[in-house]
């Protein structure tokens, strides 16, 4: 896979109907009667390119990496059928809490994004937003064969085939569905990577941001969100 990081020609969102109505430029009346012009895309959303997460060396960083590995907070976003095997992990039989893995309901507080199975284009759009809102260092687990090469839905007009074209993936787990144990093994592998300081896909995403963005925009036809959602 060749990743071109030349600043590609990212189409800037200009078309009006691609902007969600609540994000359109408009004039609002303030309670005191004065008119204020708001441009939500520029006012509310970050316009700056993200920065890479700096990996330092040394004992402190090692300790921090250990802490990061032992405290994986998973975003509760079931993107596909894989979400059926995530709940068993928080229940008595498999109990992933004992490995320091927890579910968090909001992307801001999560480190791990499990893409559980196939991603339809409509979900991909949300997944990108969720992913970008997660604070670095962050990790993506691709669950099931759908994330690797399309899986079951390889010929569907609405699901993507290769997740790594749109989001950086740290660990893949084969299966359809993978057993919960396979997921636990995936977490173990991810921990191993983090402890070794190798789970750096989030930085790769930032380094190749233009490539990823171009891929994303190619298939998301109504890109009515800001370019960056950090």
């Amino acid at each position: 896979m060749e990743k071109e990081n030349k600043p590609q020609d990212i189409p800037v969102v200009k078309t009006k109907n691609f902007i969600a109505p609540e994000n359109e430029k408009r004039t609002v009346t303030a309670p005191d009667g004065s008119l204020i012009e708001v441009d939500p895309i520029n006012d509310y959303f970050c316009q700056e390119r993200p920065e890479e997460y700096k990996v330092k060396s040394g004992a402190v960083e090692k300790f921090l990496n250990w802490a990061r590995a032992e405290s994986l907070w998973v975003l509760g976003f079931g993107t596909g059928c894989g979400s059926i095997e995530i709940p068993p992990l928080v229940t008595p039989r498999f109990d992933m809490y004992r490995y320091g893995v927890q579910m968090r309901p909001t992307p801001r507080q999560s480190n791990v994004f499990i893409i559980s199975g196939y991603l339809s284009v409509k979900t991909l759009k949300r997944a990108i937003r969720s992913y970008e809102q997660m604070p670095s260092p962050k990790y993506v687990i691709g669950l099931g064969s759908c994330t690797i090469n399309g899986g079951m839905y390889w010929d569907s007009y609405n699901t993507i085939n290769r997740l790594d074209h749109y989001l950086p993936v740290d660990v893949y787990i084969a299966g359809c569905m993978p057993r919960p144990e396979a997921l636990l093994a995936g977490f173990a592998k991810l921990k191993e990577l983090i402890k070794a300081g190798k789970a750096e896909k989030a930085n790769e995403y930032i380094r190749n941001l233009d490539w990823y963005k171009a891929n994303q925009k190619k298939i998301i036809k109504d890109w009515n969100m800001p370019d960056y959602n950090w």
Partner: protein
Amino acid sequence: MSIKDILTPFTAWKRVAKEPVTVRDPFNDRPGADRYRGFHKNDVDKCIGCGTCEAICENEAIDLVPFKDPVSGDSGLRPRVDYGRCCWCALCVDVCTTNSLSLSNEYKWIATDPEEFRFTPGIEEKAWDKNEKGWKKPEGNYEFYNLERVSMEHLHPEERNDSFIEMVKGFSKEQAILEADRCVECGICTATCPAHMGIPEYIKAIRNDDMEEGMRILYETNPLPEICGRICTHKCETVCSIGHKGDPLSIRWLKRYIADQIPEDKYKEILNTNNLEVNDKKVAIIGAGPSGLSAAHYLRLMGYQVTIFEQYEKAGGMMRYGIPEYRLPYDQIDKDINYILSLGVEIKYNTRIGKDITLDQLGKDFDAVFAGTGLHLGRGTGIEGSDNQHVYYSTDMLRKITSGEEIEVADSIVVIGGGNVAMDITRSLARLQMQKFDKVNIITTSLETEENMPADREEVVESREEGATVYPGWAPQSIEIKDGIPQGLHVVKCNSLFDETGRFNPQCEMDVKNYYPGHMIVQSIGQGIDISYISEEFKENIKFGPRGRVETDEYFQTGVKWFFMGGDIIQGPDVIHGIANGHKAAVGIDRYLRESDFPNN
């Protein structure tokens, strides 16, 4: 709403004293169940690379990749699974024609690189290769296709053992469609068939009940479907992938079914050969056997003026003069041949090259010559007493029987040979014995053991049904002769025919002897080449290989540019090879004639 509603929920706390039910070591405490559908395993030695798994996979997760060089019946390909596609439905396991594919109960595969998830089970070593558990095809009557052949109606031994009427009745439409339905369209047969007939395609045509399409597919590679549909050696059926678990498809009967459905007068219309172009090139064909007819057919389709020279009074060669009528009725031979002749192929009967016209003359009169003269000489055993006048060659005898000549039939006969021709002569003689003496007393003995006999299995079985006794695994030693009449055949036990290197080297136990009484001995151990029509000076220009066979190039062109040879003389006795050679030679002749049009090129 009472106080009970407030207090009863607290009973949940009683669980706090219980041990947690969590699996302590999830990776080892809970292996997959016995039937778990985990990762793939493949027994590469058992697998034949038929690709049925690839065909049934709805995710196109399986590729066939080269593993070794193909051999007959094994494509040399092996399935490679893409776990970026697989959905672990195990349909590939259930459909596998050899039962080589199975799933293990291993289920953990974690990787950081998405490209890693492609592997060839059985070839790339994996931790679960030795895993006994996992999904296998369910036992019992659980098949995705019918393993049993649709039985074709035969004449009973009692009905057939005294007559030469065709013993196999042919499929009805329902039977044919049912039989055709068993095909998995793997195509291993196509490559194995010398003519590379589009077997899966015409079987599909049968399923679609589209006989005309089937006919067109047949004639693409084989202009003698009626004949082939009856007497082909069906190498395709030997390698048929269904044959690994059940009965192979009756590919031969299906071919015959297609040809049987179309009346002769429809051929031209269906095959669109009503108006063939004619160019000014002329080609002579020597011998109206399968290869000659095949060459004539395809050359004629290409527009050449074709003349066949046939030494006997009827066309068909070995097919007519070597195969008894109960297997191949004459009207069916005529049907195929008449069609070829109706395309505008000229035929000169009773013309023997070398006697009536010389080969050199032929070369001058025609632009190219193809010789498919076949193996008409019988080969003898050369044992003591084999020069007796009551010791016959099967070829001669069959020719006489088939051309309707009266032949002498003794009350007890011994046939030497284990091939199909031996069976033919055995069964023909048995019929004649039945007609004459009302009982059968015929012994057939072969060098090869029962399981190695070159004859088709059913031929042996049917011979026995018809009263012949077959003793495989005996080597003939001498013929006892008394008063100029053979009395019987001495044989010794033969254990193996070939040594480790595959050379012909029979190993016999000389102490174990046997004696088969018979007043007539027929030798049927092979046929010999008769190329007496080629003059000595001509022979100098033709290269000869070992064992006296003519060497040709891939298009059957001999050392003499305009002279092509093919069929049994090159390939050995086999109708389908003959047809294939004829076709190929036709292509070669066409190429040669085109090139000679532009000598500068």
